[in-house]
């Protein structure tokens, strides 16, 4: 598979996805847990710019010993892209939709080499 230059390593961060355009296709790329992930910037729901929304952690519920909810909390170990159009959430690590892991973002294989980010297309 041919590699295409996406951007410089210094262009990307852990906080916000950088949106790059490659042959007319927008790709969101972000540094996450020590690796670089890249997804097509199109939500599988209705086509929203999924990588441009908020980054939010998973919401959890904590129970007491009788399974009564105590409180809600954020699990910052699992961060999500939230599509700004409708709020569909996807794990940044895998691209899986929270509501149904069969639905995934379109992921690119990323190569970081010589201070540059390449994707296989």
């Amino acid at each position, binding site marked *: 598979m041919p590699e295409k230059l996406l951007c410089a390593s210094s262009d990307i961060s852990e906080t*916000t996805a950088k949106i790059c355009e490659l042959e007319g296709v927008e790709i969101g790329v972000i540094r996450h847990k020590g690796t670089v992930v890249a997804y097509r910037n199109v939500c599988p729901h209705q*086509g929203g710019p999924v990588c441009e*929304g*908020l980054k939010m952690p998973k919401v959890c519920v904590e129970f007491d010993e009788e399974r009564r909810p105590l409180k809600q909390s954020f699990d910052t170990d699992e961060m999500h892209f939230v599509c*700004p*159009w*409708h709020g569909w*959430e996807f794990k940044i690590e895998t691209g899986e939709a929270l509501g149904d892991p069969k639905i995934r973002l379109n992921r690119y294989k990323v190569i970081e080499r010589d201070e540059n980010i390449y994707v296989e297309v």
Partner: protein
Amino acid sequence: MSLTPNALNYSSDNDPAIKEFNTTKLLKNARKQAEERNYKDFFICDVDSHHYETEALPEILQYMDDPVMRHLGLSAGNVGRASLIPQAIGSQDMAGRVTRYAGRNKEKVPESPHRDITLTRRWMDAMGVDVACLFPTPMLLLATHPQPEVEVNMARAYNRWLCERILEEDKRICSMVYLPMNEPHEAEKMIDEFAERKGVVGFLSTGYLKRPVHDNANMRIFAKLEEHGKPLGFHAAYHWADSSLAQLNKFISVHALGFSFCNMIHMTNWVLNGMPERFPKLKTLWIESGLAWVPFLMQRLDNEYMMRTSDAPLLKKKPSDYMREMFYSSQPMELVDNREALEVTFKMMNAESQLLYSSDYPHWDMDLPSTIYDLPFLKEQAKRDILGGNALKLFNIEPTMSDWKLEARKKG
């Protein structure tokens, strides 16, 4: 006790998704869809879209007859405004996840035309919508206001403002204007005042009403609508205080059930009390309840009607036969893993002639035209009818095309 600062603010004003918000940028993928699918070749009408009228409340209040009520709204800032329009509990924006809620206030627009026209045109042009039927947002719960005179005064002021400041200024925006159903004699006056105004394509009954739709006090309203040849829309809403929904503990629950339940109540009363027989020329449009409730209610009512025809003596055919002659807006279409059910639903409701595309933009559960255009079981003509042709007939309007489509056509 010391207060913990909210370190986990994942939707701050500085987030790039919110900081420099622009509708055209947010919807750039919608514009791509419009170009890829050649929407330039046909007319698209969105029969249910919204603006946030409370942002223009000081303007709207200038059109209010009652000086004391106008003073209440203008003098007390947000407190006064809350006393005029009920505030709904619920996180429509999902705690900031749907960024257009937080971003809207930051969007820059030119001084003219009116801000609401610019914002509306931006999303219309992105989606490929040529004509949009524009409705208010917080006022969808105005009918629940405990003071009927507030509902009447707000409705009249809003309708006047809408006609003068928005509909007169843009031929691509129309509306079914607010009808204060809780005060029938005022509703009748409202029909006379607004029926022939530019851009008024019908009248709207909103959400939860204090009396059932078949109440005798409403008969003159329906007769007057028939005389004017204007359709009546029933725009659903949720109302968490409604006793039937009060046990639901989450916004998703009350929203999912409330919007459908609202129209199921009105539709059941409408059909079983023989309103289609009493007002055969009055067309009704059932707005924003999704589609799945339609086959459900058809089956339930037909099954019971065949056993209990004496309970509904005005009917000359099954409830579903009446429902199939009414009109429905499409959003929010139930789209997850149910293609087969959706196809059956379309057949049961005669969707090719009775369904009208709606986006509900800018609300969080909006639908793009592609939700209709990409359905594999519809032929091209059926798609075009649902996206625009059926609205042309119901509203009796001209197919005013957007400028970018006309220019794209010239280029070929």
